[in-house]
C-alpha cells in the first residue's frame, strides 16, 4: 500500500518537478535539454503509472496527502483516488503527453522561449493528472482550473499577436463560465451530502430516488462545467480559436486530454447521471447537436488546424452523446481512441506546417504525400481511423456509441451517422487537398526530423490497433475496457446493449458503407483538385452560414461581448462618473452652495440683524403659543 501511495504521489510529482526545474532555469536550458528533461519526466510518469496499472486489481485506493480545507463540518482532504478510471486516464494522458513532449522537441526547436514552453507543458500535464487523480470534486477542480490556466498560457504562447491573446482569454473565460456550473454543483453536492469525496457522494446518491431535483440540478450544473471544458454547445467557440497555440499544444490539450475532462467528469459522476434521465436526454441532444455542428463547419474550413479543431468538437459531441445514452465505457473508449488519432492528426498537421515553414492554409498545400512520406502515411491511418473504417480504432469506438444511440433513439443514431459521413467528407477533403494533387504553395516541403516522426509512428500504430481495447462481443471480444472501468464507475454497470447481433452487424455495415461512399464522393470532389475553393461570399446562403460557423461567434459578440463592453464603459461613464461621484461631490457642493446662500443673510446690516432677531423671536413665541 505504501508503495502505491508513493507511486501515486510520484506520478504528478514528475511533471511538477519538470515545471519547477525548467521554469526556474529557463534561461539556461536549450531546446534539447529542456525538452529532453520534460519528456523524460513525463515518460517516467508514464512508466510509474504503468507500474501502478499493472499492480491494480480493481480496487479503489485513496492516497491521503494532507487535510486541505477544514471548516466546521467541512472536511476536504487533499487526496488522490487510484482506481480503474483514474488509472486509465493517467495512462493515456502520460503516454500521449510523453509522445507529444518528445515531438515538441523537434517542433519548438527554434523558438526562443522553448524552455518556458516545456515548463508550461509539464505544468499542464501535472494539472491534468491532478484532475483525473483527485478523489474529490475539489481536488479535481484544482486540476480542472489548472489545465484551464495552462491552456490560456499556451494558447497565448506567442504573446506578441493580439489575436492569440484574445483567443487565450476567450478560452479561459468560456471555461470559467462552465466553472460557474462546476462550483455551484460542488456547493450543492457538498451541502446535500456533507462531503465531496467521490465514493461517499456516489454511495449516498445511489440511495436517492431517480429524478430527484437535487440530482437533476447537480448533474445539469456539472454538465455546464463539462460543456465549457469540452467545448460543447453553447460554450464551444473557444476551441477553434485555441488553435492559435503551437500545434503540440493543440494536439495535447485541445484534442487528446483537456477537452475530454468533461467526459471524464461525467463518467466519474455516472451514478448521478444514471439517476437523472432528464439530464441524460439533454446531454444526448447537446452531444448530437455539437457533433453535427462541428462536422458541418469542418467542411468549409481552409486552415488545416481549424478543420481538425472542428473535427474535435464533433468527436466530443459523439462522446457526450455516448454519455447521454449511458454508454460510459463506450464514451471512454472513444476518448481513448480519439486521443490517439486526433493527437496523431494534429501532430501530422504540425509536421506539415513545419514542413511548409508555418503555412496552415490547405489551399496552399497539395501533393505532399511524396515529400513528407511518413507524415502522409500516418495521417492517412489517422484519417481512416476517424472516419471509422474497420478495423481501425475509430471504427470500434464510434460504432459502439452509435449502437447505444440507436438503442436509445433512432433519430440520434441517424444524425450521428450523418455526422460520421460528414466527418469522412471533411477529413478526406483535408487529406486530399493536403497530400494529393499538386503543390500549390511556394515553400520547399521537407520531411520532419525523426524526433517528430517517431511519435507519429507510435500514435499511428495505436490508432490502428487501439480498437483491441474494447472489442465487442459480436467480434469475439470481451469488452476489456468496459470491464476494466466497471470497478470504478458504477454507471458503467448499467450500460447494456440489448440489440441483437444482426442489428448490430446491420448498423455497422450501414455506417461503414455510407462512410465509404462518402469517401468516394470526397475523392471525386477533391481528389485531383488543383484549383482553389471560391470565397465564401460566392456560396449559397446555407453554405455561407455554415462556412461562417453558423455565425456563432458573431452571435456571441452581439449578444455578450459588445453589450458587456458597452455596459462596462457606460457603467463607468454614467454610473460612476455621472452619478456616484457627482452625488458625493454634489452633496458637498450643495452644502457649500447652501452655505454661500445662508451667508448672504449675514449681510452686515445691523437693522437686518435686529430684524432677524426680532422676527425669530416673534416666530418662536408664535410657535410656543400655537403648540400649547
Amino acid at each position, binding site marked *: 500500500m505504501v508503495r502505491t501511495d508513493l507511486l501515486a504521489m510520484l506520478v504528478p510529482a514528475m511533471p511538477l518537478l519538470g515545471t519547477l526545474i525548467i521554469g526556474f532555469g529557463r534561461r539556461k536550458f536549450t531546446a534539447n535539454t529542456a525538452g529532453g528533461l520534460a519528456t523524460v519526466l513525463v515518460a517516467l510518469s508514464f512508466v510509474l503509472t504503468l507500474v501502478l496499472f499493472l499492480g491494480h486489481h480493481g480496487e479503489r485506493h485513496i492516497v491521503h496527502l494532507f487535510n486541505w480545507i477544514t471548516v466546521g463540518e467541512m472536511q476536504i482532504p487533499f487526496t488522490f483516488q487510484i482506481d480503474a478510471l483514474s488509472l486509465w486516464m493517467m495512462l493515456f494522458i502520460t503516454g500521449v503527453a510523453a509522445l507529444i513532449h518528445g515531438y515538441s522537441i523537434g517542433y519548438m526547436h527554434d523558438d526562443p522561449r522553448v524552455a518556458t514552453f516545456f515548463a508550461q507543458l509539464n505544468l499542464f500535464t501535472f494539472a491534468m493528472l491532478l484532475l483525473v487523480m483527485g478523489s474529490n470534486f475539489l481536488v479535481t477542480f484544482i486540476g480542472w482550473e489548472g489545465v484551464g490556466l495552462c491552456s490560456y498560457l499556451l494558447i497565448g504562447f506567442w504573446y506578441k499577436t493580439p489575436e492569440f491573446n484574445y483567443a487565450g482569454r476567450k478560452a479561459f473565460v468560456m471555461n470559467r463560465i462552465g466553472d460557474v456550473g462546476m462550483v455551484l454543483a460542488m456547493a450543492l453536492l457538498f451541502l446535500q451530502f456533507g462531503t465531496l469525496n467521490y465514493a461517499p457522494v456516489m454511495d449516498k446518491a445511489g440511495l436517492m430516488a431517480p429524478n430527484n431535483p437535487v440530482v437533476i440540478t447537480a448533474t445539469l450544473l456539472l454538465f455546464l462545467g463539462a460543456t465549457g471544458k469540452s467545448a460543447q454547445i453553447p460554450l464551444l467557440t473557444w476551441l477553434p480559436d485555441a488553435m492559435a497555440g503551437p500545434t503540440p499544444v493543440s494536439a495535447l490539450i485541445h484534442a487528446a486530454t483537456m477537452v475530454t475532462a468533461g467526459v471524464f467528469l461525467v463518467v466519474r459522476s455516472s451514478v448521478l447521471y444514471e439517476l437523472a434521465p432528464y439530464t441524460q436526454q439533454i446531454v444526448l441532444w447537446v452531444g448530437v447537436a455539437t457533433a453535427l455542428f462541428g462536422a458541418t463547419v469542418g467542411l468549409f474550413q481552409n486552415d488545416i488546424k481549424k478543420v481538425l479543431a472542428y473535427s474535435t468538437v464533433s468527436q466530443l459531441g459523439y462522446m457526450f452523446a455516448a454519455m447521454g445514452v449511458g454508454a460510459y465505457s463506450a464514451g471512454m473508449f472513444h476518448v481513448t481512441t480519439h486521443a490517439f488519432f486526433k493527437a496523431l492528426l494534429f501532430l501530422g498537421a504540425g509536421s506539415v506546417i513545419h514542413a511548409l515553414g508555418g503555412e496552415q492554409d490547405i489551399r496552399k498545400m497539395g501533393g505532399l504525400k511524396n515529400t513528407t512520406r511518413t507524415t502522409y502515411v500516418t495521417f492517412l491511418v489517422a484519417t481512416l481511423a476517424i472516419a471509422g473504417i474497420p478495423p481501425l480504432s475509430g471504427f470500434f469506438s464510434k460504432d459502439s456509441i452509435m449502437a447505444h444511440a440507436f438503442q436509445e433513439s433512432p433519430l440520434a443514431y441517424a444524425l450521428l451517422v450523418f455526422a460520421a459521413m460528414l466527418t469522412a467528407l471533411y477529413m478526406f477533403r483535408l487529406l486530399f487537398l493536403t497530400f494529393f494533387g499538386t503543390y500549390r504553395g511556394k515553400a520547399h516541403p521537407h520531411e520532419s526530423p525523426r524526433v517528430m516522426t517517431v511519435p507519429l509512428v507510435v500514435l499511428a500504430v495505436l490508432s490502428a490497433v487501439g480498437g483491441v481495447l474494447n472489442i465487442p462481443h459480436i467480434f469475439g471480444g470481451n469488452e476489456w475496457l468496459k470491464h476494466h472501468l466497471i470497478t470504478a464507475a458504477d454507471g458503467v454497470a448499467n450500460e447494456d446493449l440489448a440489440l441483437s447481433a444482426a442489428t448490430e452487424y446491420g448498423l455497422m455495415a450501414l455506417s461503414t458503407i455510407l462512410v465509404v461512399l462518402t469517401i468516394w464522393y470526397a475523392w471525386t470532389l477533391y481528389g485531383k483538385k488543383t484549383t482553389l475553393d471560391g470565397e465564401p461570399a460566392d456560396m449559397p446562403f446555407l453554405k455561407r452560414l455554415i462556412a461562417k460557423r453558423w455565425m456563432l461567434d458573431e452571435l456571441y459578440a452581439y449578444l455578450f461581448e459588445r453589450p458587456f463592453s458597452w455596459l462596462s464603459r457606460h457603467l463607468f461613464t454614467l454610473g460612476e462618473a455621472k452619478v456616484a461621484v457627482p452625488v458625493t461631490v454634489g452633496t458637498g457642493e450643495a452644502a457649500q452652495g447652501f452655505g454661500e446662500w*445662508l451667508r448672504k443673510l449675514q449681510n452686515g446690516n*445691523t437693522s437686518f440683524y435686529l430684524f432677524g432677531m426680532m422676527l425669530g*423671536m416673534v416666530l418662536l413665541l408664535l410657535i410656543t403659543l400655537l403648540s400649547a
Partner: protein
Amino acid sequence: MSALVLISVLGVAVLYLGIFGRKVILAPVAIIGLLAAIALLASGWHIHHPLLEGMLRFDRLATGFGIGMAAITVLVFLFGPDYYARKEWHVAEQYALMLFSLVGGLLMASYTNLLMLFLGYEVLSIPLYVLAGGKKRSLRSSEASLKYFLLGSFATAFMLMGIALLYSLTGSFDTGKLAAYMAAHAAPNMMLNFGLLFVVLGLAFKAGIVPFHFWKPDVYQGAPTLVTTFMATVVLMAAIAGFYRFIDATGMPHALATVLALLVLATLLVGNVIALRQTNFKRLMAYSSISHSGFLLLALLTDTGFAEGHGAAVGGTLLYYTFTYSLATTGLFILFTIAKRANQGAEHNGIFKGLWHAQPWLALCALALLLSLAGIPLTAGFIAKYQVFLLAIGAGWLKVMLFGVLMALLGIYYYIMVARELFAPAEQPVTFAVAPLNWAVVTLCTLAVLALGVWPHLPGL
C-alpha cells in the same frame, strides 16, 4: 465672594497702574491676582456665604466655571504683553475691562436671583462693548463695537421683559421660588412660557444661538484678536453657565424644550453650513463657535423637565465642553495672531501656509487644537462631543442628535481645511516671529487639550 471682590479690586488696581504708566507690570499683576482668585475660589469650595443668600450661590459648578473662566483669562493675559507690545494707550483699561467682564461672568455662573443674572449679564457685556471697539482708529473695530452694543442691548430688553413676566407670576426674582411656582402649577401657562422664553433668548444671544447669532461673526472679526479670544472663551463660558443655571434651576416645560430643539437645529445648521464658505479665520471661528453653541444648547436641552439628578451631569459636560473649547480657541487665536503678523495683517486661512516648515511644533499644536475643535478622538473636543452625544441620546433626542452628527461632519470639514493649510508650503518664504510666552501658552493649551482628551475625568466633576 472673596474672589469676586478680589477681581473687582484687581481691576481697579490695574486701572491705577495704568494711570501711573506701569505698562510692563500690568499683566503680571493681573495674572498673579487672578491666580490668587483661583486659589480663593478653589478653597471656597463648600463655604457658605450668608451674605449672598438669595442672590448668589457658589456651588461646585459655579466654582468650577469660575475657576475655568479665571484660568482662561490668565491664558489670555499671558498673551497680552505680546499683543499689546506696540500699543501705548489704554492698555491698563483693556486689562481692567476684561477683569470687570470676568466679574460679570462669575456672577452669571453663580446667581440664584434674576436680578443678579441681569446685573451679571450687564457687567459682562458693557466692558465688552468697549473692548470690541478697542482699535480706535479702525472702522471695523468701531463697527463691531456698535453692532455688539445695539444688538446686545435689545437682547437685554427682551430678557428684562421676560423677567417682568415671570415676576408677574411669582412676585419674586428668586429662581428657587420660580421653580417652586412651576412645580406647583404644572398646567401649561403661556405667561410662564413666554417669560422663560424671553429670558432664555436673552441668554441665547450671548451664546450666539440662531437667530440671535448675527453679531458673532462681525464682532469676532472686527474686535481686536485678544478681545475676540476673550469673547470666544470666557464670555461663552459665562453665557453657558448662566444659561445652565437658569435651565437647571427652573427646568423647562416640555413645550419650550421643543422650541429649544428647533433652535438647536437652526444653530447647528447655520453655524456649520456658513462656516463651510468662510475664508476669514476669525469669522470661521465665529461660525464654528455658533455651531459649538448648538451642541451646548443640545446638552442644555437634556436638562429640561426637572430630570432629577441629571443636572450635575449636564453642568459637568457644559463646563468640560466650554473649558476645553476655550483652551483650543485661545491657542488657535494666538497662532492666528502670529500668522497674521507674518502675513502683513492678512486674516484669511491661507496665512497658516508654511507653518509646518517654519515651526513644526506649532503646526502640530495647531493641528491638535483644530482636531480638538473638530472632535477627533484623543483630544478633549472629542470627549466633549461624546458627552453631549451621551446626554442627548440618554434624554431621547435621537433625531436631533443624528442631525448634530451630520453637522459635526461639516464642522470637521472646515477645520480640516484650515489644518490642510498648515502643512502646505507657503508661496513665498514667511518668517513666523514667535514670542516665547506665546509659544508656551500654545503648548500649554495643546497639552491641556490632549491631556483632558486622554484623561477626561481629570477635572473631577
